[in-house]
């Protein structure tokens, strides 16, 4: 839960070893290229942290390593005090670190409501032997999950679309669904890969409002990749800047904006 200190836009500490997520010296290479080359940073609990950097800086690769979708070559990732580096993706998600994708992965040929219910944790009915021998427990949990899913859909203005196939939603609605679905998983930390990409500004603003509200009301922590500097300045309370696989700057938005190394990185100079 958020403490008083972490609410609002006030910066929180980011010294290593104390965040909800502590990344130290993560390396990931593809053949001769090191896409992530020793990235280190921390994400404080209850914060909204933006990860920015020019194209090819290694942001998405870093996301993939953090969430177990790629096996990192070296380094350390601690989440809520536990080492999670190189755990499989599903295990990391179950610990409460849930990601979304740059290109939305709505489960198109499944109804919206099933997309939501899928994400709910602790459903014993997802194990085959429970399906056969603990059908009562499964059904009870399923009713709870159904209620939760309906409530969340309502919040995200998708309440009327529960029975529609997810594939019939617009691009923006899919982004909302993906965020709502990730929330069904009860995450402590949400990693959003370009949540604003490819959706209209109105829906984008709604998504950002949701992010602020979730942090405020539920103390959820966000780490998001974003290119729109205006969004970053307005909504993040901490910014991490990557270039060429490394973290080159970290701080509050206004500090980062004035940092000459950041300006250089964006303008193509050597950082």
């Amino acid at each position, binding site marked *: 839960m958020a403490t008083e200190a972490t609410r609002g836009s006030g910066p929180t500490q980011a010294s290593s070893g104390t965040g909800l997520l502590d990344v130290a010296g993560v390396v990931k290479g593809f053949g001769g290229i090191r896409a992530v080359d020793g990235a280190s940073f921390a994400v404080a609990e209850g914060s909204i942290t933006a990860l920015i950097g020019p194209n090819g800086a290694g942001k998405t690769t870093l996301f993939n390593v953090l*969430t*177990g*979708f790629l096996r990192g070559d070296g380094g350390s990732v601690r989440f809520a005090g536990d080492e999670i580096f190189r755990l*499989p*993706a*599903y*295990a990391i*998600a*179950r610990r409460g670190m*849930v*990601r*979304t*994708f740059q290109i939305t*992965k*709505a*489960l*198109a*040929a*499944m109804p919206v409501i*099933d997309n939501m*219910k*899928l*994400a709910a*944790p602790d*459903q014993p*009915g*997802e*194990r*085959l032997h429970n*399906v056969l021998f603990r059908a009562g427990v*499964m059904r009870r949990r*399923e009713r709870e999950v159904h209620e939760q899913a309906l409530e969340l859909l309502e919040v995200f203005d998708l309440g009327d679309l529960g029975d529609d*196939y*997810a*594939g*019939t939603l617009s691009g923006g609605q899919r982004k909302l669904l993906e965020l709502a*679905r*990730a929330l069904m*998983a009860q995450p402590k930390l949400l990693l959003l890969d370009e949540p604003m990409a490819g959706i209209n500004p109105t829906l984008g603003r709604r998504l950002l409002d949701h992010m602020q509200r979730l942090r405020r009301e539920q103390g959820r922590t966000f780490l998001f990749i974003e290119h729109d500097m205006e969004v970053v300045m307005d909504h993040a309370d901490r910014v991490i800047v990557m270039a060429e696989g490394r973290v080159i700057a970290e701080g509050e938005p206004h500090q980062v904006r004035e940092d000459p190394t950041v300006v250089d990185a964006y303008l193509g100079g050597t950082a």
Partner: protein
Amino acid sequence: MSPPPLAFTLEAFTNFGFWSGVLTIAGIYAVVALGLQLNVGYTGIVNFGQAGFMAVGGYSMAILVLEAGLSFWLALPAAVLITMAFGMLIGLPSLRLRADYFAIVTLATAEVVRLAAQNARGLTGGNKGLYCEFDGGDQVCFDDAWRSVSDSILGFVENFWADPEALLPLLLVVWLTVAIGIVGLSFVQGTPWGRVLRAIREDEDAARALGKNTLLYKLQSLAISAMLGALAGFFLALFLATIHPDDYEPIVTFFAFGVLILGGLASYKGVAIGAVLLWTLLEGTRFVELPISEEKTAALRFAIVGVALILLMAFRPQGMFGKREEMVLGD
């Protein structure tokens, strides 16, 4: 004996002996295709190796009875377990691959099984096949136990129906298995477990990102499919009263895919209807008498099935019971 062009003989409708054979083989293919439906229609893993699972099931059962001297009724569950273990062994490395590579691995594995059976003559009888062996003068066949059950069922049926078809008991057992399979699979498909499978079919990465151990689910899906393959393997062995490598060629798997396409993806009852339709088309066309040679008619029968599949794809691409929306949105 010169029939008029394009005539049906009356036999086409009255020959129950013939049609009980067709229905039995259709039921066996329905069992095979139920496994494929689970894999392809609901999990999104393209399994081209069902014939291999049938062979492993059938051969294991026969070898356990004939060589190890196990009772038929113990050999059945043992052979099912062997086949499921075999399926998981194949799946463990290959289910990590992309769908098309997995398909190649399963197809190749099924061929390895068939060729091994053809050449391991000491164990499988090679091209002579397996049926009976002489055990100190007594002839022991793998289906002895089944024959006696079958005879007592026939004896019971004779109370109502004089001179029943000898195939009737197997026909009943096969279709009972199909019915149980449809009901059971439809039930688990509607549970959260089935929902995870569908999510994997739609997008495996999305399922992983939501905390699902997708490899485990794919293995379970394959193991159940292997179990159904083993059952179909038993039925085929009982139907043919032999186990021979030629009965497990890849064409068996592809006919089962034909059943799947006719019935429609993501529908279990479609599998049963598809199987009956495919085999009625294949076998029923035997009764169409054309003023051409026998060989030409034989070839034409397969052409008719091909045309039927093409017409279906053109006018109803989702199959008879498939959902068009899911097909369109799936990609």
